[in-house]
């Protein structure tokens, strides 16, 4: 038979281009792969065992060889064996899987944070320093990166197979995932939760850069306004500063340093102020009244986009004093020119 050389070359190229195993490009990947190979091993052993039993018995006890069956009721010993051994193996897998799960979902405290907003059908990444990306994400090697993600519409799921990480991106609540990239290169981002018409087009690329290249990228691609600076503008334009002015007589609680603290609410519960709490308190204030304050804050549901909420959260997170709040407050009531920004809020 003769195969045309063109066709042959095409076939060889096509087969060589085929992926068979994902790259290991994060610190988590080797851990995930170790468990995967262990699971593959016990699967193969189990399959070979079942195959050997079925074929072995089929050959040995086929009708020609063994015309009359010998009735056996069962065997407690054998049955105990194949209850206990699988159970033990599955429990090992359980513990191993749980350890891996906590490794993937518990970020180290020094992780740098990047926000990701999912919407039909794109990923928007927002770096605190004011870099905005669509269907792309630039991260450095050697630094843990935490993604704080939220969906603007339906369920999405943020997956980077080469890092072995994935997390559902849910409307109305922040979810997080972290990774530490090890090898510079570009890797797929997939949306893995079916999200409507262009689900399969909701893809992107993570670009992993060496720390130097990453610093260069950050400087070159910033929009000039950090998320916190955007948040500050929003804080003033939405009139938040009117009540949350930080003065003792203010109608709203003081927000300086509130992030990370424990707050006593009027309903008696105590909450930890984190990103999710701040977001909920803006959208649904009547459920989150700080003890000692009147329930007068209106809801901002439908008035601020998820991006805007992220800006506000970033601003409140970074707010150490009320100096600038009062500055902007004075600015908006007096007709003086805005002060030149002396100390830019650090991203």
């Amino acid at each position: 038979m003769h195969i045309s050389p063109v066709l042959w070359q095409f076939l060889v190229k096509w087969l060589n281009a085929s992926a068979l195993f994902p790259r290991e490009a994060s610190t988590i990947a080797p851990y995930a792969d170790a468990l995967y190979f262990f699971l593959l091993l016990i699967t193969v052993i189990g399959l070979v065992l079942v195959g050997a039993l079925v074929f072995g018995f089929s050959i040995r006890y086929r009708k020609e060889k063994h015309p009359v069956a010998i009735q056996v009721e069962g065997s407690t010993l054998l049955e105990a064996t194949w209850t206990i051994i699988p159970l033990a193996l599955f429990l090992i897998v359980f513990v191993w899987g749980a350890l891996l799960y906590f490794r993937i979902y518990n970020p180290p405290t020094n992780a740098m944070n990047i926000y990701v907003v999912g919407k039909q059908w794109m990923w928007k990444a927002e770096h605190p320093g004011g870099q905005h990306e669509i269907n792309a994400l630039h991260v450095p090697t050697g630094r843990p990166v935490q993604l704080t993600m939220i969906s603007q519409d339906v369920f999405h799921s943020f997956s980077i197979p080469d890092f072995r990480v994935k997390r559902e991106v849910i409307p109305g609540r922040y979810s997080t995932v972290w990774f530490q990239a090890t090898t510079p290169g570009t890797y797929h981002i997939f949306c893995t939760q079916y999200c409507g018409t262009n689900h399969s087009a909701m893809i992107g690329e993570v670009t992993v850069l060496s720390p130097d290249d990453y610093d260069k990228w950050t400087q070159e691609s910033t929009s000039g306004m950090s998320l916190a600076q955007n948040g500050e503008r929003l804080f003033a334009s939405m009139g938040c500063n009117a009540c949350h002015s930080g003065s003792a007589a203010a109608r709203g609680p003081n927000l300086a340093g509130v992030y990370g603290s424990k707050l006593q609410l009027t309903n008696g519960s105590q909450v930890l102020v984190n990103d999710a709490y701040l977001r909920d308190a803006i959208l649904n204030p009547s459920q989150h009244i700080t003890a000692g304050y009147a329930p007068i804050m209106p809801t901002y549901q439908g008035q601020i986009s998820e991006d805007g909420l992220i800006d506000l959260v970033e601003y409140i997170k970074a707010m150490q004093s009320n100096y600038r709040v009062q500055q902007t407050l004075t600015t908006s009531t007096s007709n003086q020119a805005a002060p030149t920004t002396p100390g830019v809020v650090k991203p």
Partner: protein
Amino acid sequence: MSATSYTIVNLPDQRTATIPKRNYLNNEDGLLSWLFTGDHKRIAILYLISITFFFFIGGAFAGLIRLELLTPQPDLVASDTYNKFFSMHGIVMIFLFLVPSVPATLGNFLIPIMIGAKDLAFPKVNLLSWYLYWIGGLFTLAALVLGGVDTGWTFTTPLSTHYLNTHVVTAATGVFIIGFSSIFTGLNFIVTLHRMRAPGMTWFRLPLFCWSNYAASILMVLGTPVLAITLVLVALERLVGIGVFDPTKGGDPLLFQHLFWFYSHPAVYIMILPGMGVISEVISTFSRKRVFGYTAVAFSSVAIALFGFFVWAHHMFIMGVSNYSALVFSLLTMLVAVPSAIKIFNWAFTLQKGSITFETPMLYAFGFLGLFTIGGMTGVFLGALGMDIHLTETYFIVAHFHFVMVGGMLMAFLAGIHFWWPKMTGRMYPESLSKLAAVTTFIGFNLTFLPQFILGYLGMPRRYHAYPPEFQVLNVLSTAGATVLGVGYMLPLLYLGWSLKYGAIAGNNPWQATGLEWQIQSPPLTENFIETPIVDHEAYDYEWLAHKTAQEVTTVG
């Protein structure tokens, strides 16, 4: 050695044999006699025709999906059309084929006969459940004809409630109604098995097929109402915006996930348990041995049914359930895997010291053992928390549940159809052709779904219309396998249809099996038994059968 000793098939002399003059098939004539029948056997046949119809509709969509995925580009159909394809494939295959497959056909036909009863406890409810099935089926078809639905079979909010303008409510109504059909079937089986066993037929003399259908019935009766509630909430959310699942109104979309999987995980066991029952019967018959550890197999069915209710959140490990609940649900998932492993080994050891022959049902059962082992073990991959993060929502999970549902359940269903076909119709099918079909199915299946495990580990997401070009080779393999699989499924349709008229007369007990159903004529009388049988032996008692056969010969002589 003559060929006859390789087989246990024992057909009557074809020159003198006839189909019994009176049987359930010709007891009454005319379409109306079928549409208004209360006979569990006729209803089983109605179901068999109906689910076969829907199986090939679902299969056609599977074919179209695989055809589109032949190339990385979204070039065969538009994205919306593709999304409708996989949604219809899922809805039709799960609710209209897999859930009713074994219980409504083989279960309906066999359970009353196996326990020595004349019919199910509520024959009219049984007929009603078939009509409900069709009303639900017509709603689903209406959703299809009117323009389709693209929610996926999972109806996930807020996508299904706020973002799609396809026929979501029509399809959901269909599934809602089919649910009641399933509840009625389950209820009927439970009452029948409790109240209508023949004298001497104790619980531990029941064939294992009855045990596994009993376990599945419990799941149907307890689980399906939750699905119904969930679908009603989805419809209300969509039509009037009640806000139960809508975060902007204080609702929680994760609540939908909890409710949906509270049914849909047990539903997996509704689908697989009756299939396991078939495998027990087939393996026992063709190795001439009582099922190894009968009690363990019986109780493992019940254990699966009970544990099956407490593992639903393993579908949500990456959705932000708390770490503690993730731990608990992962542990329970590991525990529910154990009874399945027990069953596999018990079946394997049933072969030991048997006298094994390899007729078509046995080949399908062997296929089941291999494929279900892979399907079950890959389930352990997904139950392991950290592994699930990488694997869930990819083709790995697609391959996993097809191994369980198609490799497991469909193989079991075909094993059962081939096993009881002579009882249901009184005729045999061509043996070599049916063996060919079994082998073709097995090969085609593996070729279709093994590459999908690799694709899944590579990260290819499920429900993708287009994919990166480096995944193409594996997708081409998978599509090639699907064509082989398609042939494997078409063959039985052809030769089983052929056998209805031209097949050899099967006689009462072609496989020399022990169940009560094999001791009566084929096809059975409408009333099954002329006089109520009195059961004085265990299930799978081949010595009793040999004794009985020997006596029959002496009395005739």
